[in-house]
């Protein structure tokens, strides 16, 4: 653990348990140094991949001379490259993330998830960066492998506060354009914005061959909508308010919410993005354990 860092988001026992399971990517990554993750490039390495015929232009230094001497044929021996991972955490810092139910805010849950994952990533030798997005990008910390980089991330998480409308969609498009090399992108948000535009962002990121995982953070109150008496609902991201009888509109509200969630889930499925729903009253360790185990299972297969 990085000395001097704000570790209030971390739990040493949870970290100890989760470190047994490395965070793996579902697709080849392009790193700068060798690591645990598959690379799209072939080259000299310890992991034999295949033989292939020599074609003009290939580097003759990679010819397998022994085979040439024995058979007079030109073969190249290829090895799988293994590289490190660059991970971008995207945190939605719009005011809606400050919604506080009985189990704290959604932002609190996001901080714990990001801090824990960042710690795991850096300690397995990969690079972690953080992008905090409010109305516009608030903080942009590029990925680093240095353990002392964690302190920067934790401080930034500490400073991140819910405010204003969400600018998540332009920020994601910008991120897709900015990050040229394949990376793991983890987005933490409630995604309370227009579903079509949001799915375009996911498609854009996937088009850039990033491994995309989205964590939708919700509160139990938002899912159940259990209110007895008339309530004035005040929008967290604007001054708009609405007095209504929850018992009257509950059915329609839940229908709309479930339709949105279904659309989001189906879009993620379509663009091969991993979708995770996290509710504030859930144990964050279980959320992360499920995420890590599933990725490991996928890597093995």
């Amino acid at each position: 653990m990085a000395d001097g860092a704000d570790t209030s988001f971390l739990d040493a026992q949870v970290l100890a348990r989760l470190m047994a399971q490395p965070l793996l990517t579902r697709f080849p990554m392009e790193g700068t140094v060798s690591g645990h993750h598959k690379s799209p490039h072939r080259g000299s390495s310890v992991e034999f991949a295949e033989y292939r015929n020599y074609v003009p232009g290939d580097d003759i230094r990679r010819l397998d001379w022994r085979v040439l001497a024995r058979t007079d044929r030109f073969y190249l021996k290829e090895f799988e490259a293994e590289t490190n991972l660059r991970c971008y955490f995207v945190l939605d810092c719009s005011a809606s993330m400050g919604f506080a139910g009985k189990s704290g805010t959604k932002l609190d849950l996001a901080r714990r998830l990001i801090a824990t994952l960042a710690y795991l990533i850096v300690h397995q030798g990969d690079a972690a960066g953080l992008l905090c997005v409010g109305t516009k990008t608030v903080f942009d910390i590029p990925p680093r492998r240095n353990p002392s980089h964690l302190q920067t991330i934790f401080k930034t998480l500490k400073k991140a506060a819910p405010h204003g409308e969400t600018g998540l969609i332009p920020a994601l498009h910008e991120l897709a354009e900015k990050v040229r090399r394949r990376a793991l992108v983890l987005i933490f948000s409630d995604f309370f914005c227009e579903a079509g535009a949001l799915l375009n962002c996911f498609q854009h990121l996937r088009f850039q061959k990033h491994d995309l995982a989205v964590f939708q953070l919700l509160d139990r109150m938002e899912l159940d909508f259990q209110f007895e008496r008339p309530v004035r609902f005040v929008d967290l991201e604007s001054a708009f308010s609405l007095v209504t009888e929850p018992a009257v509109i509950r059915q329609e509200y839940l229908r709309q919410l479930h339709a949105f969630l279904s659309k989001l889930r189906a879009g993620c499925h379509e663009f091969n993005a991993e979708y995770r729903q996290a509710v504030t009253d859930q144990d964050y360790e279980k959320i992360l354990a499920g995420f890590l185990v599933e990725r490991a299972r996928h890597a093995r297969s």
Partner: protein
Amino acid sequence: MSFLQPLVLWGLPLVLLPVIIHLINRLRHRSQSWAAMQFLISATQNSISQARLRQLLVLLFRVLAVLMLILFLSRPLAGGWLGWVLAPAPDVIVVLLDRSASMEARLPGTTVTRREQALKLISQAAHEFEETSHLVLLENALRAPQEVAGASSLASLSLTTATDTAADLPAMLQSALNWLIENRAGTAEIWIASDLQRSNWKPEEARWKSVVAQLSALPQTVRVRLLAVNQEPEANAAVSVQEVTRRQNGSQAALQFVLDFQRNVSASDLMPLTVNLDGASAQLELAMDGQAMRWRHKTDLGSQRAGGWGSFELPADANPRDNSAFFVFGPETPLRARVVSRDAQSGRFLELASATPGNGPRQPAERVTPAEVQKAHWEESTLLVWQESMPTGAVAEQIRNFVEEGGVAVFFPPAQPEAQRFHGLGWGEVQTAASADKAFRVLRWDEDQGPLAKTDEGLSLPLAQVVFLRRQAITGQKSVLAAFEDGAPFLVRQTLGRGEIFFCAGLPHQDWSSLGDGPVLVPMLQRLLQAGSRRLQQVSSVACGEMSATDQRRRWASVDAASPKDFRFQAGVYRSGERMVAVNRPALEDEPEVMELGATERLFGNLPFQMLLETRNRTGQLQGEIWRFFLSAMLIFLVVEAMLILPQRQPQPSRVPGRPLPSANGTGVPEAVP
């Protein structure tokens, strides 16, 4: 429209309570910061119209339920708003007023009688129709319809005052029907005010079907409304005289009474009773156990030979009309018996047993032959003892006339079977006991009344000790007063006109029985001799309102009261010339049985019928059945409101995401399902 609790109507603004609560509830909303506004706005827009309609309906039904509750608590009169006014005003309203003696019972806790209360309520209800309808009064005593000028004058009419008569509801209804037909009335309503006393309504009589069918067949609409003032009165007792007999014993005379007492509470206590006899009063106390009692009483007249009158009176109670019973008794009457017997020994016993009581030595009864019966003078005879072949022809007719006038005829066995019958009774086979040890015995007989009743001292006649070696069977329809142990009748009775016919199965003959010893035969024949004395007396007791047409033409003056009374309506003792008569309320008026409401309604068949149950309250006004309507309406509104606010089909609750499901696209990308 009028209400029993009009003050409750001040609560009418409370119908706005649900609206106010709704508005306050909306104002008392709490604020909640919310992130998922996009779904909230969309849901509100989509469900606002339907929800608003449902909310308005809920509010409407709540308001209506409160309104119904207030109207229910204010107890609207059945005769007002819905009951009477909603129906079109009839051309004629015929009021059938039951002013029988039982209608004089006071309502519990008040000094108002059933009749007064009924009149008050009828007047109130009829007042609304004064402008549009004719009002016709038909009461039970005269049953003569009379048009009434105004509803307010109903209570002051002499035809609505208290009487000691009984009511005959089917006859009253028939009179109303006749009036409607004769006067060619238009739409009519028949308002009946009665206490539903069963003896007055006579539900078992076929007249009901006839009169209801005729009313239904009328071309105009006839509606029946019944005001039932049948609240059980407070403690009430009634007395009636069943029998008054003058007994002459030497120079001393005595009156023997049989009185019936009835009351509506069952208790064991002493009841004070005042006996008035020719102006002198005496107070008695009699122990009464239960609700009904038959009491025998004897009063010495001393050497008084003339007739007189008197009364029995109970202390004041809930119904003063049934506390008095009047009687009159005639002067000493010489009693004669005639004996017709074919057997010398039996005839002698019968002559002696039916000897005329008097001051001097007893004179045996006059013995005549069957042939002499027709020629004999019957002016002073009260008893005929017949031990001969069954009379036929003119003789039988003579005997029949004798009995119809009030005389008593006793038939003893002719000792041979006969096919001939007299008034349905005849003789069968002569039966002989197998031995003296197996002689016939009489073990049960009527000891309350009749010739075998107990003595004045309360002792039973020794009939069980009488040995019957022979008997002759009695055939025909009869009322058995005494029977042998095997069920065969010993003494039977048949009424004929004012008199009675008795058949006795045994003979006072040594070959037949030990009846000739006297302890049974003598009192039996002496009592029958007395019973036949009514033949020599004119009718001395009559039920109020049932005096014969002949007697009604005479001028009658009240004897028991200083103020004049009308013998047609009032009980008492009346004199016309030398003749006195006791007028008492009919015995049926003391019967406590009341009609069931359902049975009463069924009597009117398909006629439009409405029943109003009078219940006493502080304002003394009418409580109809209409409150049930408001109570039912309130319950219906509450049920509908509850159905509207019931939560509709619940959507599936959110599922806590668990282990992600494997992806279906084969890429191995997991998905978590919410």
